[in-house]
């Protein structure tokens, strides 16, 4: 379970003034829930994820994961419990290293890294079985440097790496935005499969309203650093993209001008 209390983050914008990226956010995500996060550019979605993962420190507020206050923990310490996939497929893997070396790094998540061999025969067999499920042919390319894979393959591998140790929380930061539509759908299907199979608590940021409703079981919308819409259950099940837009407009009493949001 993830509990955010009064989470606030501001950034200096020069001239002594500050921009409030995340403002007094309170959010509770029960274990196993899959939440999609939408909102226009600058709404604070990515900052929220960065606060949870520990890349940014909050100005105020607390973050609790499974009953433990992790607000003061460094990024690498939290990473023992939080898996993350980034927007850029290049960010989630080490390109100069092979597929099996990357998987070995991921498998050691949060553990003390020893002088034992990174890729043993037993591990290689396990990776082969794990990759075979993806049906991307990656199980035959264990010794290929990740840089030689396609964007979709690389992002699928990132997803497997982020989830293979079944972290307490999975953060997906627009992880399909850089892929072509067909590949994006494949990666989304894989996301759904892995999340439900492992029962992962998940927070997925997306620009695509359709994906936001298609995936997961709860959707929140952010605007100017705050959560302005939070729908789940039957209410969400009957929603269409235009309903979502309308609800947003009604809540804020203003029109959304961001083109990416409208086009999504």
């Amino acid at each position, binding site marked *: 379970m993830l509990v955010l209390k009064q989470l606030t983050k501001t950034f200096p914008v020069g001239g002594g003034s500050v921009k409030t990226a995340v403002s007094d956010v309170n959010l509770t995500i029960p274990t196993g829930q899959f939440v999609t996060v939408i909102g226009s550019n600058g709404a604070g979605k990515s900052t929220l994820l960065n606060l949870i993962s520990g890349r940014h420190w909050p100005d105020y507020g607390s973050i609790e994961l499974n009953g433990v206050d992790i607000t003061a923990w460094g*990024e690498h310490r939290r990473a023992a419990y939080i898996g993350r996939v980034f927007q850029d497929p290049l960010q989630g893997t080490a390109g100069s*290293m092979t597929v099996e070396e990357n998987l*070995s790094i991921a498998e050691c998540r949060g553990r003390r890294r020893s002088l*034992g*061999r990174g890729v043993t025969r037993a591990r290689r067999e396990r990776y082969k079985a794990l990759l075979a499920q993806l049906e991307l042919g990656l199980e035959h390319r264990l010794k290929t440097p990740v840089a030689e894979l396609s964007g979709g393959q690389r992002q699928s591998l990132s997803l497997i790496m982020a989830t293979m140790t079944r972290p307490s929380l999975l953060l997906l930061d627009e992880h399909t935005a850089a892929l072509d539509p067909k590949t994006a759908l494949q990666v989304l299907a894989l996301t759904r499969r892995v999340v439900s199979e492992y029962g992962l608590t998940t927070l997925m940021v997306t620009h695509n309203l359709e994906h936001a409703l298609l995936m997961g079981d709860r959707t929140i919308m952010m605007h100017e650093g705050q959560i302005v819409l939070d729908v789940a259950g039957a209410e969400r099940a009957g929603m269409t993209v235009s309903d979502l837009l309308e609800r947003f407009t009604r809540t804020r009493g203003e029109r959304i001008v961001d083109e990416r949001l409208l086009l999504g």
Partner: protein
Amino acid sequence: MSWSALGGSLEQGLAYGVLALGVYLTFRVLNFADLTVEGSFPLGAAVAAVLIVGGTPPVVATLAAVALGMVAGAVTGLLNTKMRISGLLASILTMTALYSVNLRIMGRPNVPLLRQPTVFTELSAAGFDHPLQALMLFAAVAFGLKLLLDAFLGTQLGLALRATGDNPQMIRSFGVNTDSMTILGLALSNGLVSLAGALMAQYQGYADVGMGLGMIVVGLASVILGNALVRPSTVARGTLGALLGSVLYRLAIFFALRAGFAPTDLRIVTAAIVILALSAPALRESLGRGRRLPAPAARPARGSVSASRAEER
């Protein structure tokens, strides 16, 4: 004369190969431009020389040099990670400070090791007295350390170190403290460089405070030259390239001297070698372009494949 000089070049090539392994670790693996090398190389020489003159067994003196070299590397790492000084500047600061440290250690600019025991006299005393003694010792040390480094970079810790150089953001997201990895990598690298300094001091019979001058270029020249020869697709090939590059560099210097270049010209020769090695992929590509056939069948030709790969990088 020329045969023994050629042998000397091989010996030096292998001894400096240890330095090249260190430079490979920071420059290629950790992606860190580390100039500490210019200080940690004479540091190793100074520590070994002073301890040997003071009566310490040469092997112990050499190991002490490695330990202090690692400390020097760790200092650069701490400056970079904890004090947020850029890598290049942090290493320049350590290098500058080490000049004074080295003079303090030696008490004067030069410590001769004439008629002192060294790792070579120890070997002779142990019954291994052979004209190729130095060559065999340096080859054993250089290739032994190469294999050790290959093995280390394949461990869980080694993989985390490599990922730190490749993609620090990614490896942090898997729970690794990249600051610790940077410090570890710099310590190991400068331990190797310091070892090279300690061996060279015993080989040439003196330690000198100025012997670090230009060492980073020697190391880079070796790594770059080696990588031009052996495509560094794996760690094992990368370290092999560094060793071969170091030997090749010494041979190039040897032939440059024989061709009539004065010792004072060696710096420009070195620069020319590095430029040649760096531009090799581009040159190969432009040569290949002229020869390439219009049919796609020309694609598997060796030159064009490696050139296009180099282009991707």
